[in-house]
């Protein structure tokens, strides 16, 4: 199975080389066999005797990450769609994409996607699932941005990436939470521990994380906004990723986890609610669109909402209907996208206002579209598969009982009405799509190209899909036993038996369907008279605006925030730094009871030392106030030499000596620099400015004082110094203990101290010389 999953990816690597020959043979032909073989491989599993199976390959066993593929009914259905529609899309693209296009890029992205998508639906390991999931988002990003010189493509690509990847990260958090709770990374084993998950305190969090992942990917309200903009991708991509497969990844995820969450009121509520809202809003908005692909995009959104809602219902009939509709939607929507692409290709526009009356020029396309749109609308005809699943949807929406709770009950009661409303709009835009394009007045002057029928090979893919629509409609049982029931079983977790038949008698779902057709026809015919409603709802409001505002704000606000403190002022940086260090350290010291003023074990105070200290302190403070270079040197010198005297008094002759030398050289350097640098000026800052400086410096000084005294008074251990005193001569061979430490015990320090000087010397040298060199040029 690993070969089936990775075959497209392996080919993706060689596609750039194959595409060099594109002028001899269209790259599509060379690689068409790949998805076809994968499809045949998966078809071989179809049959009533299907058993789910697992094949596992280790990847990172120590982290429990493996490529373990689990093929059950649900995965099989998806794998067939991915490889089947994939083959048709490749075939279609051969005629859709000109050889002058960057075919190598296109097919590489497409095949990366194919592997990723197969990986998503087959992976049993949650991390592998996540990895594949992100790759579907990324390949989608690249495909939407395929015509990257178009501004809209770039916009759409980034939008889809931001929304789907944020959902992806949320999914990751959910999946990791699941592994934390269950201790396993295998979905099958998680299903076995469903009760552990439902009872854990993580459950609400897991549900939210996973739902965010699924809703963003499957374009559920209010995350649907990326899908219409994704239509900037070439049409084969829209047909494939953005209607048949990738957008169903979220559906797949929810279906997969239904085995765990199914029956939970919160799961029912969230999925049904968001699903039905998406259905209604999507179909309502679709009617308003003028671009063929935009209509189809909103239509996809609404259909996804419908499937999501059915998964939320969670009854056996609902789940069966959901699975059935996944298949049906892929067939009719795939064909419609391809027809839209053909219309675009042959007339040069996708604007439905410019189209019309194409029936005579493109009879074949029109026939195909007729089947597609009528199936989508759920027109009750025995050869249209869309009707079957639509009716089951109505049926399922009427059978919602068993959930307690006021809100849930209210929701269950209104769901059938919302389902009908959504379906009415679906009917309207389906009719609009078909009649608006193929019937009505032919507007020659508005078309850039004189329309004519597409070549047969280009029509082949939609023909196959429409044949699918009809075959499923006429002989549903062909698909029922071998495929659909297995898929529904896998989702439901128990046997689902369902006979699909056209006629059930005069039951409520039939009335609902008829109501949809009747009201839909009325609304379609009177469309122009009620269209103004769109200026009221949604009017100017849209989630797109929120998104645009958000993204703009993201940069603008970041800029504002960052440049309020990153203004290049050293003083501000220092103040922020010192204030944070002082407050946090001070607070910690306080709450951990670390302040210790119980003075013990101190040396006696003597007068001359006090005097030196006072002089030094005065000199130090004076550095702030001097305005004269010489005075500045003087006061700094006083502090430095004072320190040397202290070293003498405190039995540190070596230090005193070094300090004297260093201080003298430093003063000399200072003199040198003072000569070149401008004289000190009077400080001109405001009082507040000075007050702030004083507060910060005194605060930090006080912190140091408190810590030093506390540390000094908390001598928990004797120091290691006795060892040095004892062994300096014995082992180190020297009388001067400090020297012995420097050159022997801690010779390492000294060695690198020297290299610091070495570096400083070179740095100074190059700083001076490099400048001179430049000046000479």
């Amino acid at each position, binding site marked *: 199975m690993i070969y089936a999953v990775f075959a497209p990816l392996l080919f993706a690597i060689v596609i750039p080389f194959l595409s060099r020959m594109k002028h001899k043979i269209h790259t599509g032909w060379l690689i068409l066999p790949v998805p076809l073989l994968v499809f045949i491989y998966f078809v071989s599993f179809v049959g009533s005797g299907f058993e789910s199976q697992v094949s596992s390959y280790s990847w990172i066993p120590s982290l429990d990450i493996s490529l373990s593929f689990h093929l059950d009914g649900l995965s099989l259905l998806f794998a067939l769609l991915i490889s089947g529609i994939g083959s048709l899309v490749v075939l279609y693209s051969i005629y859709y994409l000109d050889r002058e296009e960057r075919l190598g890029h296109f097919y590489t992205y497409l095949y990366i996607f194919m592997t990723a998508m197969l990986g998503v639906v087959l992976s049993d390991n949650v991390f592998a699932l996540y990895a594949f999931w992100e790759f579907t988002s990324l390949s989608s990003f690249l495909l939407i*941005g395929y015509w990257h010189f178009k501004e809209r493509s770039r916009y759409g690509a980034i939008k889809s990436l931001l929304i789907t990847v944020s959902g992806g*990260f949320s999914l990751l958090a959910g999946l990791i939470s699941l592994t*934390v709770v269950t201790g396993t990374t295998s979905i099958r084993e998680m299903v076995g521990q469903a009760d552990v998950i439902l009872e854990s305190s993580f459950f609400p969090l897991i549900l939210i994380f996973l739902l965010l992942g699924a809703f963003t990917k499957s374009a559920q309200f209010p995350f649907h906004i990326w899908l219409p903009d994704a239509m900037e991708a070439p049409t084969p991509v829209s047909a494939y990723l953005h209607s048949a497969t990738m957008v169903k990844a979220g559906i797949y995820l929810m279906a997969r986890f239904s085995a765990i969450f199914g029956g939970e009121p919160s799961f029912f509520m969230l999925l049904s609610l968001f699903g039905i809202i998406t259905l209604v809003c999507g179909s309502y908005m679709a009617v308003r669109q003028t671009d063929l692909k935009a209509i189809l995009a909103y239509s996809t959104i609404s259909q996804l909402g419908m499937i999501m809602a059915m998964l939320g219902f969670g009854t056996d009939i609902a789940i069966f209907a959901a699975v059935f509709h996944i298949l049906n939607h892929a067939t009719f929507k795939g064909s419609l996208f391809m027809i839209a692409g053909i219309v675009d290709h042959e007339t040069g526009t996708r604007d439905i206002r410019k189209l019309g009356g194409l029936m005579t020029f493109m009879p074949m396309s029109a026939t195909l579209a007729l089947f597609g749109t009528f199936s989508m609308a759920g027109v009750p005809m025995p050869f249209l598969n869309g009707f079957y699943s639509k009716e089951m949807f109505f049926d399922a929406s009427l059978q919602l009982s068993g959930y307690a709770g006021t809100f849930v009950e209210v929701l269950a009661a209104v769901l059938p009405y919302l389902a009908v409303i959504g379906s009415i709009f679906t009917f309207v835009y389906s009719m609009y799509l078909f009649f608006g394009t193929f019937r009505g007045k032919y507007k020659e002057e508005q078309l850039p190209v004189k329309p004519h029928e597409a070549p047969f090979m280009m029509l082949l893919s939609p023909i196959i899909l429409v044949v699918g629509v009809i075959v499923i409609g006429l002989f549903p049982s062909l698909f029922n036993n071998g495929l659909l029931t297995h898929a529904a079983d896998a989702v439901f977790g128990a046997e689902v038996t369902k006979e699909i038949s056209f006629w059930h008698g005069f039951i409520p779902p039939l009335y609902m369907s008829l109501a949809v057709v009747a009201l839909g026809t009325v609304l379609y015919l009177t469309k122009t008279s009620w269209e103004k409603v769109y200026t009221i709802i949604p009017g100017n409001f849209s989630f797109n605006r929120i998104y645009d505002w958000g993204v703009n704000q993201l940069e603008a606000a970041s800029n504002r925030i960052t440049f309020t403190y990153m203004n290049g002022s050293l003083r*501000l940086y220092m103040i922020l730094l010192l204030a944070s260090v002082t407050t946090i350290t001070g607070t910690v010291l306080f709450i951990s009871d670390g302040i*210790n003023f119980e003075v013990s074990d101190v040396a006696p105070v003597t007068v001359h030392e006090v005097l030196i200290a006072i002089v030094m302190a005065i000199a130090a403070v004076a550095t702030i106030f001097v305005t004269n270079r010489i005075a500045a040197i003087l006061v700094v010198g006083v502090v430095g030499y004072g320190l040397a005297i202290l070293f003498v008094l405190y039995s540190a002759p070596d230090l005193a000596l070094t300090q004297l030398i260093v201080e003298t050289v430093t003063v000399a350097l200072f003199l040198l620099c003072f000569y070149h640098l401008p004289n000190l000026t009077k400080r001109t800052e405001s009082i507040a400015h000075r007050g702030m400086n004083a507060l910060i410096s005194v605060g930090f000084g006080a912190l140091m004082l408190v810590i030093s005294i506390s540390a000094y008074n908390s001598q928990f251990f004797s120091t290691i110094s006795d060892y040095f005193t004892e062994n300096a001569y014995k082992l180190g061979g020297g009388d001067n203990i400090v020297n012995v430490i420097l050159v022997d015990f*801690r*010779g*390492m320090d000294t060695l*690198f101290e020297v290299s610091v000087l070495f*570096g400083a010397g070179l740095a100074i040298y190059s700083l001076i010389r490099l400048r001179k060199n430049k000046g000479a040029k």
Partner: protein
Amino acid sequence: MSNLAVLPIVIPLIASVISAFIPKKLGLSRFIAKLFAIIFLVYAGYLAWVVFTDGIIVMQASGWAAPFGISIVADYLSVTLVLITSILTTAAVFYAPSSLSQLQESYYFYTFMFLMISGVVGAFLTGDLFNLFVFFEVLLMASYGLIVLGGGKVQLRESLKYVLFNVFSSMLFVTTIGFIYASVGTVNMAHLAERIQEAEQAGILTGLAVLLFFVFAIKAAIFPLYYWLPNSYIVPNPVVSALFGALLTKVGIYSILRVFTLIFNHDIGITHEIFTWLAIFTMLFGVIGALSTQNVKLIVTYNIIPAIGFILMGISLYSSAGIEGSVYYLVHDMIIKAALFFLVGALVVAAGTDDLRKMGGLITRYPVLGWLFFIGSLVLAGVPPFSGFIGKILLLRGSLEQEEILLTVAALITSLLILYSMIRIFVRGFWGDTVEGLPEGQNKKVRHLTIPAAVLLAISIFIGIGAEFIYPHVETIANMLLDRAEYINAVLRE
């Protein structure tokens, strides 16, 4: 045997000194630099292999037993980081000739670079707190030399701020060592660890721990102490920025990782709680910084900060998943940061500007660079199966295990924004119509600049896909950090 441990510090030091004598002979300098870089690389690999097979190697400098002399400790963590450092050094040596002007190269670039490497490696290896200070100074002094290299107006201005910040943090470091010495009476890290475990009423120690944390936090660029970083990292040449971004802040975060696992874990309730909050702010403010600018160098530079936040996140969790995540992320980030700085260097050469608003359509002329940049962005954002991903799942797992929801969400938002901040460069710089006035004749140079970056990216991808080879080592490192006995015994009881 034990002298093995000190060689990684000595080899670059020798290279540094040798190249100081031949600054004008560029050909020879380059050859020496490449030779030593490769020797260093091979040796670091060998050392890592020895340590992971036979256990920690301790060299007591000049043969003085710990805690009286200075212990150089080649433990699992330090040899790993030394190995990464050697890889980056080698890449930098091959990148430098195309990136620097000959004049810059001849003004002791290699000397400073190897001196800095020596300091970095020393900081990783030393087991002595004061010695750590000395190595900090070595690497800082060398970094001063590197940052002023070529010395333009802006460069010197920002260098001055950089130096002043570091002088402050160095002096704070010395003072803190003094306080610690007063209270605990030793500066050897293993000895400190042992003594602090025995200490009672350790309130003051918590205060000292936090102070020491801030010393390192300034170097590591943790919120709210990173102000010095962004502008000073974009002024030098990209090869210098790459070394800074990949190594210097990492020395800071390494020190935090070391000190707050080995020494100061007596009051996790306070210290590590602070870390949690700082990690959140570091991640968010860092990535907000990355979104705030259109300067490509600055975008990558700001992205240093959230990475540090991620590593701090793992330290704050102080669990095996958390520490493993931190170590994994540290290793990953060192490599990917260097690679991205290299790529940005190449991008700036290719586009002739570092302003994203003036770029566009570069992918037509520089497809390889574009795709490497794309992959690099994915690696940085932690997209599977690349290296950032493994670190991220470990960190998130650790965080969720402790029900740190806020931390988890902050990390996720940060990852998303990192991706966005980087993908912007790809979309606006590489996609779209090719802008007019691209510098001509840069193809060869760009290619030379791209190759080292490509090698680093390949390593980075391997660290992700080949996690099975890496993770057990990371596990060993994390176990050692969490169970301090092995380290302490190796240093004090041999």
